[in-house]
């Protein structure tokens, strides 16, 4: 496991960070509740939020959360922190102040504490057929793409499916079964933009209903939440433009 900071004995001044963390075990708790924790760390020391959570788990082993790569690549530790969705592994504790409120991602069913069921989110991702669809015979070697065509995928392919965007979207909260959500739509845009994909018309034809794409009301929480600095709102408006060009 990467760099869990060791707190040196007899370290200089200490700083107390107050945590208020969402706790819920559906099998035993009638209702979710917020539990307070205090973490003392040296004043001159900073760490990522996930490392603070690991230290808190040493205080209370029952505290449950997901984490894996610790470098913003796997997308496991998306959390709602002080009201905003972010990845715990790339968020400095010093950015969060002395009172940190941690909740699970909203709009997804809670399995336990900070762990949510990602199945509805992946279900919407699956619906956009996130893979290349081709009808022509495959060339002997590979389907070539010019550097300019490849550039069109920048800002789209980097998505790690952490669900920070989709779970911050009110349109997704109210219609999680019907609205695809920003992450799935960003991926859809990635395949619509790919010069090697041959199913553009079929993909667009499936989108003209009232919910899948058009339930987006341009709230743009998705873009402000994305820990990878991507812009799902812009991807959605690109899809709308393609849709208009096809239908007009």
């Amino acid at each position, binding site marked *: 496991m990467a760099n869990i900071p060791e707190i040196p004995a007899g370290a200089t001044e200490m700083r107390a960070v107050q945590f208020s963390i969402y706790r819920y075990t559906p099998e035993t708790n009638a209702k979710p509740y917020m539990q307070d924790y205090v973490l003392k760390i040296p004043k001159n020391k900073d760490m990522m939020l996930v490392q603070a959570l690991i230290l808190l788990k040493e205080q209370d082993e029952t505290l449950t959360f997901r984490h894996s790569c610790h470098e913003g690549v796997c997308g496991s530790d998306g959390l709602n922190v002080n009201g905003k969705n972010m990845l715990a592994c790339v968020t400095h504790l010093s950015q969060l102040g002395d009172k940190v409120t941690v909740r699970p991602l909203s709009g997804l069913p809670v399995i336990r504490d900070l762990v949510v069921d990602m199945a509805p989110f992946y279900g919407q991702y699956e*619906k956009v057929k996130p893979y290349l669809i081709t009808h022509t015979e495959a060339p002997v070697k590979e389907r070539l793409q010019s550097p300019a065509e490849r550039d069109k995928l920048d800002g789209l392919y980097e998505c790690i499916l952490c669900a920070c965007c989709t779970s911050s979207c*009110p*349109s997704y909260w*109210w*219609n999680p079964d*019907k609205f695809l959500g920003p992450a799935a739509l960003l991926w859809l845009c990635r395949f619509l933009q790919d010069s090697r994909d041959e199913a553009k018309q079929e993909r667009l034809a*499936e*989108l*003209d*209903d*009232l*919910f*899948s*794409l*058009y*339930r987006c*009301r341009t709230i743009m929480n998705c873009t402000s939440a994305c820990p990878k600095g991507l812009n799902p709102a812009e991807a959605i408006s690109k899809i*709308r433009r393609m*849709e*208009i060009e096809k*239908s007009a």
Partner: protein
Amino acid sequence: MVNKLTSITSLTRNGVRDWLVQRVTSLILAVYILFLLGYLVFHPSIEFFAWQSLFQSTAFRVFSVLFLLSLMWHAWIGMWTIVTDYIKPADIRLAVILIIIIALFAYVIWGIDILWSA
């Protein structure tokens, strides 16, 4: 993808068309409101007969009816969206949408009546 997600109470029952109608009607609403504001700014000491003659001209009546229809379509799509977001029981949702649609129709007819009695 699965079945088409549509609704009998939506204005056009098609996502692209609803989206386009809402954008175009918003432009008409904006132009009309800006025109009226501009008219009031450039006629600071306006009195009854000037105001009446504005509303008696055919061009402005056409513009006003266009405004009323745009308002109805725009509000229909917007209110339909809000209602389908927040009201989940189908019977209550249908009742609320129908009341909104009937009210919008009534406002347009009432508005036309007011325009032609000016």
